C-alpha cells in the first residue's frame, strides 16, 4: 500500500485514525509498504499489512 492511503482509511470499528508501522518497504523511503501494521489510535486494534495489502476487516471477519 501507498503511505498516502492513510488519508483515506480509518479504523473500521470506530473510524479513528490509524498509525502506520512499517516492517518492509518496496525500495526507498517513498516506496510502497509491503508489510507492517496499522494500529487504531483510539481503540488500539491492530490491522496487518501483508503482500502490500492492508487487511482492514474487523477482527471477527478476519478468519478465512
Amino acid at each position, binding site marked *: 500500500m501507498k503511505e498516502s492511503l492513510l488519508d*483515506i482509511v*480509518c479504523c473500521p470499528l470506530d473510524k479513528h485514525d490509524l498509525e502506520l508501522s512499517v516492517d518492509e518497504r518496496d525500495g526507498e523511503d517513498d516506496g510502497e509498504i509491503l508489510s507492517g501494521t496499522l494500529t487504531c489510535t483510539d481503540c488500539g486494534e491492530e490491522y496487518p499489512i501483508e503482500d*502490500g495489502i492492508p487487511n482492514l476487516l474487523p477482527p471477527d471477519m478476519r478468519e478465512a
Partner: protein
Amino acid sequence: MPNEADGSGEDDGTRDALAARRGLDDPVYAPAEDSGLLAEAAAERARGVVLEVGTGSGWVAERTAEVEGVSRVLGSDVNPHACRRARERGVEAVRASLVDPFRDRAFDTVLFNPPYLPTDPDAEWGDWQEAALSGGESGRELIEPFLEDVGRVLAPSGTVLLLVSSLTGFGEVVEHAVDCGFRAETVVEESFPYETLSVLALSLDN
C-alpha cells in the same frame, strides 16, 4: 451476471449452472456483462478519487483509472484472492467489508457491482464465489447496508454508481436508496433474456 461466452441465457442461477458456465473453482469473480456495464457507466461519470467496492479481479477499477478526470482508484474486497488479483493489475487494494474502513467524505465516486442473486438459504454453498454472487434471500442483503453507509464516505456532490439487476428488484433498490437520502438516476441499462441490468447514479440530496 450472464457470461459473455454464453449467449444462450439458459442460466437459472443455480450453483450447478453457474459452476458449469463460470468455472467456480476460481475463487475470484471473472468480469462479465455486469462488469462491462459498470465500466461503461464509470467512463461517463467517474471522477476524482474513486473506490470500487467488491472489486473482484480489479477489471472495472483498472479501466476506471484510465478515465479522464479520475485521479486515483482504490479497489476493496472481502476476498483475499480478489485483493491479490486486483493488486496484480495495478489497482490499490484494501481488504474490507463494504465501506467500513474508509473516512468520511473520502471519495468523489464509489462503484459497486454487488452480489445480487437471490439465493435459497438451504442452497448456499459457502465459498468465495458465493460471496461474490449471492445477495441472500432477497438479493439485497449487501446492497441495503451498503446504501445505508455509503453516503458517509462520499464527498459533497459525489456520485455512487450501483449496478442493479431486475432479479434483485429494481424498484426496491431505488426505494431504499431514496430512503437513505439519495436521488437516483439510471445511467445505462441493458436487457438480457432473464434479467435487465442497470447502473444507477446516486447523489445526495443536500
